């Protein structure tokens, strides 16, 4: 839960008074809140923590980090895609 994961902003909209985006994390797509990065735009990369974009990141760093996280299984862990003791709750 504590990790920040880099992703690419695909789409931005206004939902219930907050700025939201669809963010692509190397194939996994999630809705992310952009309230803390008012100036970020479609195509930018950002570090996302518990569904909130925290800072902009350059594309190269973002892709390297994503690949590293994928290779050690951290992406699945962060997005709850692995079988674990919480199984059955998801």
């Amino acid at each position, binding site marked *: *839960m*504590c*990790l*920040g994961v880099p992703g690419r902003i695909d789409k931005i909209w206004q939902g*219930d*008074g*907050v700025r939201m985006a669809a963010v692509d994390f190397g194939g996994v797509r*999630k*809705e*992310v*809140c952009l*309230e*803390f*990065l*008012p100036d970020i735009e479609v195509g930018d990369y950002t*570090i996302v*923590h*518990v*569904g*909130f974009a*925290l*800072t902009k*990141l*350059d594309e190269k*760093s973002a892709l*390297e*980090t994503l*690949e*590293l996280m994928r*290779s*050690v299984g951290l992406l699945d*862990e962060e*997005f*709850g895609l692995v079988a674990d*003791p*919480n199984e059955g*709750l*998801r």
Partner: protein
Amino acid sequence: MKYLDEFGDPAIARALLDDIARIVTKPWAIMEICGGQTHTIIRNGIDQLLPGGIELIHGPGCPVCVTPLETIDRAMAIAALPGVIFASFGDMIRVPGSSVDLFQIKASGGDVRIVYSPLDAVRIAQANPDKQVVFFGIGFETTAPANAMTVQLAKQLGLRNFSLLASHVLVPPAITAILDSPRRRVQGFLAAGHVCTVMGMGEYLPLVEKYHVPIVVTGFEPLDVLQGIRMVLVQLESGRAELENAYPRAVSAEGNLAAQAVVRDVFTVCDRAWRGISVIPDSGWRVADKYAEFDAELRFDVSDIKATESPLCHSGEVLQGFLKPNQCPAFGQECTPRKPLGAPMVSSEGACAAYYHFRRIQTPATA
């Protein structure tokens, strides 16, 4: 060197390690604060790749692990109430309370739901106007803005059925407590990058100056951790104590001002009991009085709960770096991720879980 392949760029890892070997002339003890860094260190065997005499002490940077037992027990009591939907990050589900965990509450009929984002909890409240929805808001400064946003949003949406059980912890007061401890061994710190992404670096300057201790902000990827260690060692070997940034791609000096503003609006600084450690003054955030109607501790009468910790669990000593996880007598015996006695064995940032998953089963020769 089987681990080097897993560094992203083995050549850079090799160069950093060679450089570290070249500059080190005496033993040093460095604490990494962030639980993500602890996992990287153990997964990639960074502690074993460093020259002998360089010790990495694992700090209290697992938010799940330091959430006070009283708060966990209050969470259980609220989650078990009829008419309540209790929303939590997945990491909290298996954390043992005095007698049960959230998973068992769920199994015996409690409506416990795992959310990925705190905003999901607000949506659950919108969709279930006849239920009280409580979100368990834990975490360090990185997570606090997201949790704080739920309260602002609930107010904006006029929700009367949403509240936050907030138990936030702050890094700089924890570093202060570690530096003030009579058992202090730590000579330099790796500060947690994403905490500084939000808060910036300003809070660490007074610590560097007062205690003459090097603090280097870095990320949790293997090369970031190695680079951070190298920068701390360069300072230690030259007798310098400065605040440096090894993670400029994600951390700026001032941090994220919009996130800080939301936190300042919703939370107030408070004393906080860190599980297994003690009360650290001014080390937490609670819901500010002006948002009292969204404070779960006030909405539900759970204040007189008495907590009892497992007598076998040494998590307090592990979290302060006095014991390595595999030096706890219960490690891998009475305590495993399937049957955890303490939070550090279940959380994805916990040091005991890191040692268990990456097979540091035997007790190390040097303590």
